[in-house]
């Protein structure tokens, strides 16, 4: 499945940026809405894609994770064994979840919290609206399974939330043992 009107190559070539880690305050700030047609935002979108590409096992990256507190993130869960519906690699600005259902627990980690994992309940099916960087085109994405989890995780980042803010209990945080 592809997103109508989306062409990742139109973003141009980005630079791989350093990923910040908690307790960096930018990770806890609500990101500013952006103009998706702003060339600086298009360049940042390309940087997110480039940074994701050089980070082993990375399936999503939000602007606050590279130190920029705005509503922009990249996702690509292609090839992940838990993925069902797939939209490939894409970047979304000002994304909002408009529908969420089929809540399920799952254990997740984060490049910005490298030493911990935690159990978080996420919707297994969501509808997200947002804007494509470059064209500014408004899109509605319906997805499920792992892509849905990844989108929720990245949208949380854009709103200043880490998985640590959503763990399912006092005993649901673990020392991470497997590094990619």
């Amino acid at each position, binding site marked *: 499945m592809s997103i109508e009107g989306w062409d990742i190559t139109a973003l141009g070539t980005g630079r791989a940026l350093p990923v910040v880690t908690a307790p960096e305050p930018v990770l806890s700030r609500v990101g500013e809405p952006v103009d998706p047609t702003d060339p600086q935002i298009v360049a940042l979108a390309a940087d997110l894609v480039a940074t994701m590409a050089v980070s082993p096992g990375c399936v999503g990256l939000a602007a606050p994770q590279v130190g920029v507190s705005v509503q922009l993130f990249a996702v690509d869960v292609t090839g992940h064994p838990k993925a069902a519906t797939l939209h490939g690699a894409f970047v979304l600005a000002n994304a909002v979840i408009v529908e969420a259902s089929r809540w399920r627990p799952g*254990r997740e980690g*984060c490049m910005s919290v490298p030493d911990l994992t935690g159990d978080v309940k996420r919707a297994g099916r969501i509808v997200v609206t947002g804007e494509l960087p470059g064209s500014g085109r408004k899109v509605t994405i319906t997805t499920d399974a792992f892509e849905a989890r990844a989108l929720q995780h990245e949208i949380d980042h854009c709103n200043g939330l880490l998985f640590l803010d959503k763990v399912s209990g006092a005993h649901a945080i673990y020392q991470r043992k497997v590094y990619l």
Partner: protein
Amino acid sequence: MTDVHGAELAVTVIGPDRTGIVADVAEALARLGANLTDSTMTRLRGHFAMTLICTAQASATEVEAALLPLSADGQLLVTVRDVGPDEPPHNGGLPYLLSVHGADRLGIVAAVTRVVADAGGNVTDLSTRLVGPLYLLVAEVDLPEGVPGELTKRLAHVADELGVEVNLRPAGADVL
């Protein structure tokens, strides 16, 4: 790890549950400049149990003395001791979740964890609960590569002997 905050101390506190135990202990430690690092604090039946590591310039004896008023009424048992800056042992394993449940009987934890240990598995977290006749054990276990298949068979065998259900599954997290 020893750092600028001082040496590591292990503190345990246990006693009948009441409101304010955590606040009382944490305040006493903060007054001493002892920095609370990793801890678990939970209620076990009617008792509240705290196990924690803190870093402090103060000695174990000084910290114990500062916590003494808390145990004056004979309700809370407090211990403090120095612990080394050792890194936790790591068997290079992958994380698994082990759950066991069934009718309570003597020796479930002993039998199950012995099988895990004999396979080179390292328990990193474990809780048990007894509710009515039902006994439950949930553990996080690091298992060396190649071990889980054989261990599953051995656990099934022990579970049969104990008359309990056992389930071993990967606890790997997805990095997003």
